[in-house]
């Protein structure tokens, strides 16, 4: 399976992966993406870059794992990663839900206290 991917395609793949990495970097430096979420994206882009440089990497790993059709490995890994990330987002979402509830309650209780004070004065 030597030289299945033409060099032109490889250059495109490397460029896209690097651009994506640059984009993530920009988001973090502008404060639009928190560092803790950026970790997973950096890992993804690093893998993209790795496999666009190491051309036979996919086949090597597929053979190692005994996967007959190498591209199936890509889909499996990608879907798995997406599911994990979605669960992670749900966890974050639930945590925020709790925090918002607490904030709303505190705010409402404070408003009530403030009204009490102003009617007494």
């Amino acid at each position, binding site marked *: 399976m030597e030289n299945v991917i033409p060099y032109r395609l490889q250059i495109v793949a490397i460029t896209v992966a690097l651009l994506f990495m640059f984009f993530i970097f920009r988001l973090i430096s502008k404060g639009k993406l928190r560092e803790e979420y950026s970790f997973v994206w950096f890992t993804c882009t690093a893998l993209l870059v790795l496999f666009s440089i190491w051309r036979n990497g996919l086949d090597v790993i597929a053979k190692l794992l005994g996967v007959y059709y190498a591209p199936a490995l890509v889909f499996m890994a990608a879907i798995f990663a997406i599911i994990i990330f979605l669960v992670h987002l749900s966890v974050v979402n639930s945590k925020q839900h709790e925090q918002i509830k607490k904030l709303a309650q505190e*705010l409402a209780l404070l408003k009530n206290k403030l009204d009490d004070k102003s009617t007494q004065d």
Partner: protein
Amino acid sequence: MNKQLKVAIVIPCYNEQDNVLKLYQEIQNTPFPDFYSVSPIFVNDCSNDSTRIILIDNHINFIDLPVNLGIGGAVQTGYKYAFINGFDVAVQMDGDGQHPPVELSKILRPIFDNEADVVIGSRYLTKEGFQSTSLRRAGINYFKWLNKKLVGVTIQDSTSGYRALNKKALELVSDYYPDEYPEPEAIILYSLNHLKIIEVPVSMRERQGGESSIKRFKTLYYMVKVTLSTLFLYISIKSMKHK
């Protein structure tokens, strides 16, 4: 009698413009014994009708939530209020007029007598007053069974929102209270934390306006959701205790 006991009536309301004033006046006009004082506290759960305006115009003490938290979050806000302000007892009363204030002393008595930490007003212990629909009753029987299996307490009316909590229970619910459809789940919470629950018969009325938080097409979702959250709560409290 040494000092007068302070009772907070927590009334969560979401779009109850037709009921709030009526309920407030009814509470004011109900004669209560001298040894306790009753303060109604309305919790406006970000209603989008004129509930808020009515509460302000009539100078009624209320807590105004900036975002809609749902019944559990609203009730918890009221419980927190009662706990912070040093009330001895908090009673939850629905904003739709289903829970008559005249029944209040029946619910409060076991707490004053130190017989219970949590008292639930049940409409099924005696066949008086409004008895609700057959579908709802089937659901209630299911929860009765579930509660008995999990924590070994039999509660006839686990969906009843007419409840009284003493200080010990208030401290617990200030920390955690279920969000959506909290009533059956809260029973598990109380019993696993060794609070004593007593059920007393009260008569209830048919709702006087507004909409029930349990609509018919949502019943199945309600059952599944409550079952799941009850089981999860049971497991998490049990595993916490083992550590």
